[in-house]
């Protein structure tokens, strides 16, 4: 990778690495006796490792000008590998904590291994580690292909990708040590948050610079979604993480907001992290890889526009449906519910646009497991957005809130939609990037598909059952007008479902392991046939016809 950087970029890389290492040293020294110092050491090591890598290749010959006629794909490859590593890690931890809820004794009398600390390791590992790397990698691919332009430089994609992974490492290692802000999906402390802002600004600038080089007058719809993902996540992240550290030498900070304002800000963030991280970003993926793989143009340009702006506008109002019947003023709850219901329209328009694109290609869906991953993802997207709007209705929420139904809903979304579209995109992308005709084993793609589907269904049905039983038991009255069940009664009723859920998770995880093996073997196979430069394709001149809207 260093040999692909120009001389100027190598100098800049040395400076950035040294700066990161210096920051790490400062944190380690200033935070002596605090978890901050351990994070300082991690940052220091990351900076030194980068410095070592860059200096090791510093005097290698510079890349020649011919590179500019090609797309820059090495960071995309790295991103895919990182996403799969995080995916296996995050899902393993997830299944582990699922077993902990059935068999709580497995914590070794150690702080780091308790459910409360491991749960954010799981959520951050899969959402930010797996999902985030997948989004960054695919966005680098999509923005170049749809612009028919190479990225403007070789350094900034590496800065974004590796910087982002440093953030993920700081986040996850922090939870093991008990460093957390307690805001769900925004747990990392102030210094990690600041670092993410820096990385994110570089990401957006890189996106704009690539778009500025495009040879295509229009910005393709996938890019609108990726841009909304980057911009709105920045907005949410900055506002929700406003906090005052107790000192510069401490990892601990206190949120600027309190009570009801903090709750509203948190769920404005939390729900829109779902909207713009787990939906908009992955819709960007869907809008490129599904039509490409199906070799069909997107069904409707009009539906793309309505879907995109509808999602961008309506989602931001919906967060307060997480706070029905709480101390949040009722007018905000009502607004949240109303917009959650309206949100179904653009959501289903986006899902329908994807599924209708498959008209004329359904035989491929039958034969090609990769395309079937994407099709099923669109179906799960449609189903879970329907469920989400349904659960936002106040009386429904009275039953579902605080129960496992929420967990079922989230996993129908993240397993059925986000993970499946990611695997579909990866199975399309890996052979393209590594210049192979197909994946190492198409049969294993098929195996993965059925494991992923079975795992998702087992998981979601178990949690639907347990959630609804829980909700009903909590509100059941006896004939004499007293509550029929104690809380522990409801816990006994949950036990079999918690086991079923853990099995469902295990099935899904084994599918991911199959996928990781298949991707790894494809890469190895490509390594064996690397000496075939004529297969490297230059930037194409004609517009990619399959991506033009139909209208």
């Amino acid at each position: 990778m260093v040999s692909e950087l120009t001389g100027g970029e190598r100098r800049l890389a040395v400076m950035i690495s040294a700066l990161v290492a210096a920051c790490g040293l400062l944190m380690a020294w200033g935070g002596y006796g605090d978890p901050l110092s351990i994070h300082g050491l991690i940052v220091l090591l990351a900076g030194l490792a980068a410095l070592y890598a860059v200096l090791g290749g510093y005097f290698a010959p510079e890349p020649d000008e011919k590179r500019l006629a090609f797309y820059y794909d090495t960071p995309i490859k790295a991103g895919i590998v990182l996403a799969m590593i995080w995916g296996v890690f995050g899902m393993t931890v997830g299944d582990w904590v699922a077993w902990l809820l059935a068999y709580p004794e497995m914590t070794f009398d150690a702080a780091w291994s308790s459910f409360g600390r491991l749960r954010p390791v799981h959520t951050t590992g899969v959402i930010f580690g797996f999902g985030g790397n997948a989004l960054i990698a695919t966005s680098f691919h999509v923005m170049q292909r749809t612009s028919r332009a190479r990225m403007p430089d070789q350094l900034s994609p590496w800065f974004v990708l590796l910087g982002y992974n440093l953030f993920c490492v700081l986040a996850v290692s922090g939870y093991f040590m008990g460093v957390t802000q307690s805001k769900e999906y925004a747990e990392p402390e102030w210094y990690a948050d600041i670092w993410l802002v820096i990385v994110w600004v570089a990401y957006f600038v890189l996106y704009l610079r690539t778009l500025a080089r495009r040879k295509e007058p229009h910005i393709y719809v996938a890019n609108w979604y990726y841009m909304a993902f980057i911009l709105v996540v920045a907005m949410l992240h900055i506002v929700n993480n406003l906090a005052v550290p107790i000192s510069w030498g401490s990892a601990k900070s206190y949120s600027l907001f309190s009570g009801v304002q903090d709750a509203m800000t948190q769920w404005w963030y939390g729900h829109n992290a779902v909207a713009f991280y787990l939906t908009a970003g992955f819709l960007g993926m869907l809008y490129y890889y599904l039509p490409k793989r199906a070799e069909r143009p997107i069904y409707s340009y009009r539906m793309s526009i309505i879907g995109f702006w509808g999602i961008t506008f309506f989602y931001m109002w919906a967060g307060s449906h997480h706070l029905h019947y709480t101390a949040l003023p009722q007018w905000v709850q009502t607004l949240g519910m109303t917009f959650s219901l309206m949100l179904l329209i653009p959501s289903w328009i986006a899902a329908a646009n994807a599924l209708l694109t498959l008209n004329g290609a359904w035989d491929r869906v039958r034969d090609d497991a990769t395309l079937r991953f994407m099709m099923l993802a669109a179906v799960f997207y449609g189903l879970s957005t329907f469920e989400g709007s349904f659960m936002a209705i106040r009386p429904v929420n009275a039953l579902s809130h605080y129960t496992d139904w929420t967990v079922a809903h989230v996993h129908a979304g993240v397993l059925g939609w986000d993970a499946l579209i990611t695997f579909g995109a990866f199975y399309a992308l890996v052979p393209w990037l590594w210049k192979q005709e197909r994946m190492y084993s198409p049969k294993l793609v098929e195996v993965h598909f059925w494991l992923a589907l079975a795992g998702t269904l087992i998981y979601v049905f178990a949690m639907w059952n347990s959630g609804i039983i829980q909700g009903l038991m909590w509100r059941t009255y006896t004939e004499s007008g007293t509550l029929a069940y104690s809380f522990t009664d409801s816990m006994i009723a949950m036990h079999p479902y918690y086991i079923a859920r853990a099995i469902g998770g295990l099935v899904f995880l084994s599918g991911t392991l199959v996928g990781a093996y298949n991707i790894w073997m494809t890469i190895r196979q490509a390594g064996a046939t690397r000496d075939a430069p004529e297969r490297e394709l230059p930037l194409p001149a004609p517009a990619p016809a399959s991506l033009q809207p139909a209208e």
Partner: protein
Amino acid sequence: MLGTHYKLERKSIRLALGIIVVASIGGLVEIAPLFTVHGTVEAAPDMRTYTPLELAGRNIYIREGCYACHSQMIRTLQDEVERYGPYSLAAESQYDHPMLWGSKRTGPDLARVGGKYSDHWQVAHLTNPRDVVPVSVMPAYAWLNRNKLRTDDLGKHLAAQRTVGVPYTDAMIANAEKDAIGQASPDGNDADGVRERYGDATNIRTFDGNPEVVTEMDALVAYLQILGKLTDAAHKPHTGMEAR
């Protein structure tokens, strides 16, 4: 409309600005008024702040991720009020930076758990939940008994809390460490200072039953025992001053 969009999607900066504007509206309309509309947070003149020991316990609650399984928000639903007590008011979490309303009840709500069980029960339950609740799936926190509580930086904690709006006085900040130890040492010299600064109703006890050393268990139990007890507002008949 399509014609306008056909032009818009040719300019990346304009598209980006469009996204920012469209995405900002919802949050501005729903969040900004919560800071300005009078009555969003009810008046609670008797409300006191957390003592340094309780704040330290709250930080342990956050550190261990207790909020992932326990809510602190009783909804305005009859079965919840009967199971957990009067529904939660916004005023009760007005000093909670961040709030810990939670989103999931793998275990029961804790908004009014203060005083519901004895210190002894809380310690036994945290040490090994299955000793007192055989079907519990909560992790055991026995090591909280062994960890000495860090108190030297509590002054900084209180000062940062004051920066974000919690009314801690200079005396409270200056005596934070002393008060934390004093609250868990009823026979010591520092207990009176805690009473003076935080009120006579403050729990001053050896929460973990071990007077030798102030542990993390002391802090966490002190926090759990104050939940729902910082103000009586929720127990009083409401007179239309509330926002709901």
